[in-house]
Each structure stands twice: as structure tokens, then as C-alpha cells.
């Protein structure tokens, strides 16, 4: 409630602020508009004054009775037009008014403003054009600038009205916009509150939303899907860990119970078996800590330019006796001279884990192959076997911690080997993928290659059969 109250107050302030901004903008527009109109009216008046002067003087110019002709014309105009916005005046060379009904002093020649009393007491301002005749008299036309005066008189009112209307429109538009936004966000807010309260399955309804609101809601929903997946996999991880520990712990307890009932000579071998179960449990925790260390970036990385040939030969030499003891053979198919930027300890573990998987999760007699190839800018390390392989549906699952192939017995390895290998590939900004080798399983690790001095030899490859 408090949240919504504060929200409304914020909306009110926003509406007033945008209303004022609207009003100021409209005042500026009004002032500029008035200036333009004023200028336009003035120039029209000047043109009209020049036009009427030339019309009056066209036939009297240079005649001997210039003054008399002009006076006659003025008188005739006064008779004809009782009310007019123009007044014609004639002054002699001494400045005495000869004709015309406006009490002003003779203005300077050309265009100027003149002040006069318009019947009552108040002064009016008019635009005048004065022309000196050949005999020295001054002919003046005065335009009573009523249009301009009216325009000036109207300005404050117009500006005030415009400002008030703008203020009103600005405030209402903002309030309307805020209302529409709030209405669309209310459901999002409600869903967010439910999720914060623990309902991770809740999603923002998108059917009543449009435009950017719909796009935003969909993005948020995708984010929530991802978060829910992560939480679920964490929960699965914990329950898998508990399940995986249950088996060796049960065996350990059985062995200890059995040992407590046995006579002295039979106890030692039982305790030795119990010790092995402890070692297995410890190995699960060691692997878990290692996985966490790599995944959270806590591993003190010794990243360096790492040529793979020696490292892979070393791993092949190390693992060959293990695979042979398992009844198979280990063949290095192809070994390109390539280098990566890597941590040797982690890359060793990656390869050892993949080859140990062959030795522990396939039937006796399964052989393994190992190859390192350069593929444009990438290095592809492949570990394959000719065992029974995995169903394609299981590929994504077995990379997860504590997940094993359906055929693999529990207690055979920590169940973290592939998860750690995959984490190491990701740690090196690479990827680990499983493929059907038909027969068998192939694990492809793709890492970025780096150029080294010995790169010219990268095309050469060797085949080395170890067993």
C-alpha cells in the first residue's frame, strides 16, 4: 500500500513538471508567433502607405497649383470617407497645416511613427509616411495602426490562455500516460511480488500487453524460465549428491557393523574395506570441490601458451597401461602441432577424465582413440571409444554432475568426471560435445587455437600406435 501511495505521489509530481514544461514551450511558441505576425502586419501597412502616397501625387506632381490640388483632393476624401483608418495631411514649407483633420506636428520625411489624440484624451500611435513636394510643402499619410494595436493588446491574454491550456493538456497527458503505464505494469508488479514470495513458477501474463510492454514481459519471463531451471538443477544436484553418498555410507556402516561382531582375525580385512569406502567418499568431495573451484573461477589459473603435442603424448603414455589393463588399446590417430592458451594442469585433467571414462564406464576390451586436429582457428581434441556408446537422449544428461550412462554401475567413479571435463572446456572458453561414433561414443572438445612460432608445421600430422 505504502509502495503504491508513494508511486502515486511520484506520478503527481511528474504530471505537474511535464505540464509546466508544456506551458513554457507554448509561451515560447506564442511569443515567436506574435513577433512574426507583428512584422508581417507592419510591412503590409508600410506598403499600403507608399501605394496611397503615389496614387495621390501621381497627377498633381509638378503642377503650378500643387498645394491647391492636393488640398482639394484631401477635402474631397474627407467628404467621401467620414470614417477611415487613413488620414491625409498637407503642411506648407513653414510647417503650417493646410489640410487634413489630424492635430500633429509635421513628421520627418519617410516612414515614422506619430502620436496623436484620437478624439478622447488618450494618445494613439500611427504609422506615417511624409513626402516633400516640389514646392517645399509636406504631404503626409497616417495609418491608424488599429490592427497592430489590437494585436499588441491581445498578446498577454493570448499567451496566458495558451499557457493555461498547455498546462492543463500537459498534466492530463502525463496523468493519462502514467495511468496507462501503471495499468500495464500492475500485473508485472503483482507477478514480481509473487515470485519474490517464493512462487518461482509464476509468469507475467502477456495476453493483455502490447508494444514494448509485451516485449519486456516476454524477456522477463525468459529470464524467469532460466532462473527456475538453475534452481531446479541446484536442487537436483543436492539430491543426486545425497543419493550418491548414501550408497558408500551404507556400505561403510555395514562393514563397521560386521567388524564389530567378528572375531579379531576377521576384523582387519573388514576395516580395510571400510577404509576404501571412506576413500571413495573423500574422492567424491575432492571432485566436488574441484568442480566448484573451476566453475566459480576460484582455480588459480596458470594460463599460458600451451603446445598440445607433448602434453597429449604424455597423457597417452600415462593412460595407455590403464586402457590395456582394461583389455583394450589406446591409439593416437592424429596429432597436429597446435597450441592453445591453457592451464596445463586443467588440460591434463580434461584428457585424463575423458580417457578414464573409457576405462571405467565401458565393458572390458573397449579401445580408445585420441586425436588433436586444427580446424581453422580452433583446436579439436577428440576422445573416442568402440564401446556400446550412449543413447542420444542421454548426451545432455550425462554431462551433468552425478549423472551416469544407464549401463554404468553406481560407485564406479565419482560421477563428476564429464561435468569437470565440461567445466574445464568452458573455463578455457571452449565447449565439450558428445557424438555417436557408431559404434561407441566420441567426445569432442573444441578450444581456440593460438598462433605460435612452430605453426608452420601445423599441417603435418603423425599417426602413433601405442598398443
Amino acid at each position, binding site marked *: 500500500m505504502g509502495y503504491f501511495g508513494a508511486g502515486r505521489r511520484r506520478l503527481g509530481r511528474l504530471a505537474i513538471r511535464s505540464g509546466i514544461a508544456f506551458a513554457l514551450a507554448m509561451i515560447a511558441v506564442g511569443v515567436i508567433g506574435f513577433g512574426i505576425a507583428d512584422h508581417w502586419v507592419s510591412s503590409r501597412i508600410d506598403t499600403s502607405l507608399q501605394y496611397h502616397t503615389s496614387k495621390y501625387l501621381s497627377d498633381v506632381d509638378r503642377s503650378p497649383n500643387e498645394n491647391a490640388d492636393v488640398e482639394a483632393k484631401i477635402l474631397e476624401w474627407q467628404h467621401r470617407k467620414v470614417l477611415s483608418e487613413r488620414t491625409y495631411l498637407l503642411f506648407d514649407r513653414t510647417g503650417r497645416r493646410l489640410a487634413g483633420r489630424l492635430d500633429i506636428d509635421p513628421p520627418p520625411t519617410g516612414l515614422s511613427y506619430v502620436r496623436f489624440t484620437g478624439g478622447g484624451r488618450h494618445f494613439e500611435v500611427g504609422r506615417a509616411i511624409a513626402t516633400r513636394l516640389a514646392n517645399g510643402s509636406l504631404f503626409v499619410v497616417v495609418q491608424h495602426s488599429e490592427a497592430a494595436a489590437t494585436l499588441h493588446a491581445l498578446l498577454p491574454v493570448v499567451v496566458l490562455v495558451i499557457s493555461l491550456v498547455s498546462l492543463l493538456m500537459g498534466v492530463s497527458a502525463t496523468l493519462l500516460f502514467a495511468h496507462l503505464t501503471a495499468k500495464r505494469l500492475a500485473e508485472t508488479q503483482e507477478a514480481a511480488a509473487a515470485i519474490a514470495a517464493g512462487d518461482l513458477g509464476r509468469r507475467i501474463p502477456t495476453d493483455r500487453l502490447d508494444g514494448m510492454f509485451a516485449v519486456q514481459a516476454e524477456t522477463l519471463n525468459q529470464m524467469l524460465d532460466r532462473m527456475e531451471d538453475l534452481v531446479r538443477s541446484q536442487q537436483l544436484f543436492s539430491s543426486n549428491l545425497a543419493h550418491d553418498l548414501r550408497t558408500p555410507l551404507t556400505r561403510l556402516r555395514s562393514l563397521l557393523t560386521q567388524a564389530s561382531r567378528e572375531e579379531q582375525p576377521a576384523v582387519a580385512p573388514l576395516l580395510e574395506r571400510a577404509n576404501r569406502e571412506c576413500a571413495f567418499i573423500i*574422492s567424491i568431495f575432492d*571432485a566436488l*570441490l574441484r568442480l566448484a573451484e573451476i566453475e566459480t573461477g576460484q582455480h588459480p589459473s596458470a594460463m599460458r601458451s600451451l603446445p598440445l603435442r607433448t602434453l597429449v603424448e604424455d597423457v597417452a603414455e600415462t593412460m595407455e*597401461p*590403464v586402457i590395456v589393463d582394461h583389455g583394450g588399446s589406446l591409439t593416437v590417430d592424429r596429432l597436429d602441432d597446435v597450441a592453445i592458451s591453457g592451464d596445463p*594442469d586443467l588440460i591434463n585433467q580434461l584428457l*585424463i577424465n575423458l580417457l*578414464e571414462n573409457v*576405462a571405467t564406464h565401458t565393458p572390458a576390451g573397449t579401445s580408445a582413440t585420441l586425436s588433436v586436429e586444427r580446424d581453422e582457428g580452433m583446436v579439436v581434441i577428440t576422445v573416442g571409444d568402440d564401446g556400446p556408446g550412449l543413447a542420444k537422449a542421454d548426451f545432455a544428461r550425462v554431462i551433468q554432475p552425478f549423472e551416469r550412462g544407464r549401463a554404468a554401475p553406481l560407485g564406479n567413479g565419482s560421477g563428476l568426471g564429464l561435468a569437470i571435463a565440461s567445466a574445464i572446456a568452458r573455463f578455457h572458453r571452449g565447449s565439450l560435445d558428445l557424438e555417436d561414433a557408431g559404434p561407441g561414443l566420441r567426445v569432442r572438445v573444441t578450444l581456440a587455437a593460438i598462433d605460435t612460432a612452430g605453426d608452420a608445421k601445423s599441417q603435418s600430422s603423425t599417426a602413433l600406435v601405442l598398443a
Partner: protein
Amino acid sequence: MHILVVEDDPVIADHIVSGLSFLGHGATLARTGSEAVDALTYRTPDAVVLDRMLPDIDGMSVMRHIRSDHGTIPVLMLSALGSVKHRIEGLQIGADDYLAKPFDVDELAARLHAIVRRGAARPEGAGLEVGMLRLDPSSHRAVYREGSAVLNRKQYSLLAHLMRNADRLVTRSMLLECVWSYSFSPTTNIIESNMSRLRTTLQEIACDPIETQRGAGYVLRSQRCA
């Protein structure tokens, strides 16, 4: 050897002290950091087993004290913090070795032997000889009397390490660290399989000096190389 054991957990402390006594070593127990500092003033041990987390002065501070006041006494740091990062931290402040809990007393004793005799160990890379058994680095061969056999790189390094530590127990984890430079524990019998190949090769030249210590590791017996 006389060992100063600095460990606050009574069960673990008792396990270490009785285990070392069983193996013929004397041990003094200190339950706190300050007790350890006092014990060091009273008597200089051959080596120290130092728990990293202690109730008063922590193990890292005790380690610094040992290095500043007692010079080069070999120290093995013991800790429940077993990641590579923690291990590096321990070695960087001067520990000679770092062992993560849980551990085996045989492993602890073997590592103590290794750090105490480190000064006496033969340098790496030099041509190695134990009795009539000799390693030839240029041809990667093991030579025994008239016979000789080619070893692959792993077998060569494995035999070289055992020869450098002749008549002393070398555990599997020590071999993983020293011969393979692995900071992780493989799940298969990498050591056993490679050791079995090495022994088969040595038997071909009528030399069989390597003895398996069940559950613990391997010892290369110099008398069998005569």
C-alpha cells in the same frame, strides 16, 4: 625424528601423535598457536606438522613466526582447506609441503621424511645410480649389470623419483605430484598400471628393486640393486 605437532582437534592430534610414535618417531603436541610458539623456544624439532586453522594465533601466523625466528625448520602444513589456491597460499608463506585433510598417517610420515631429507636428496636431472642400477638420461635407458632397457618418459621419471628417494616410502599422491604434476586425484589405477609396466621392464633386465607397501605406496630397495 622428533616432530612438533600443532593441532587443536583432540582426535586428529591423538591420531597423528600415536601414528608417528608407531612409526618410531617422537612427537610433542601443541594445541594452540601460542603453545606452538612456546614449544619452539623450548626445543627445536626436526620438523613441524602445523594445522592451518587454530583457535588463537592462526597457522599462517605461526608459519610466519617460524620462518622469521627459527629459519628453515621443515614445516608440513595440514588443512581442511584443500584446494589448489589454499595449497599455493600455504607454500607461498614458507611451508615445505601442504597436506589436505582427511589424510593417512603413512602419507604424513612419508612426506615428513621427504621434507626433512630434502637437502640430502640428489639433484634432479643428474645421472642416477643406486647400487648396480643406473639411469642413462641420454638414451632414456635403465642399465643393470650387463642388461639395459629403454623406458618411456613416464617410466623413466617414475624410476628416477624412486631412485632419488631410495629406501624411503613414496606414496601415490607424492608420485602424482612429483612425477605427473597433477593437482587432482585420478579415479583409475594410473600409478599401479604404470608402475607394473616399469617393474615388468626392470624384471626383463633381472632387476626388481621396487616393493609395494600395501595401501601406502612404493619403496625402492637399494640392497636389491646390488
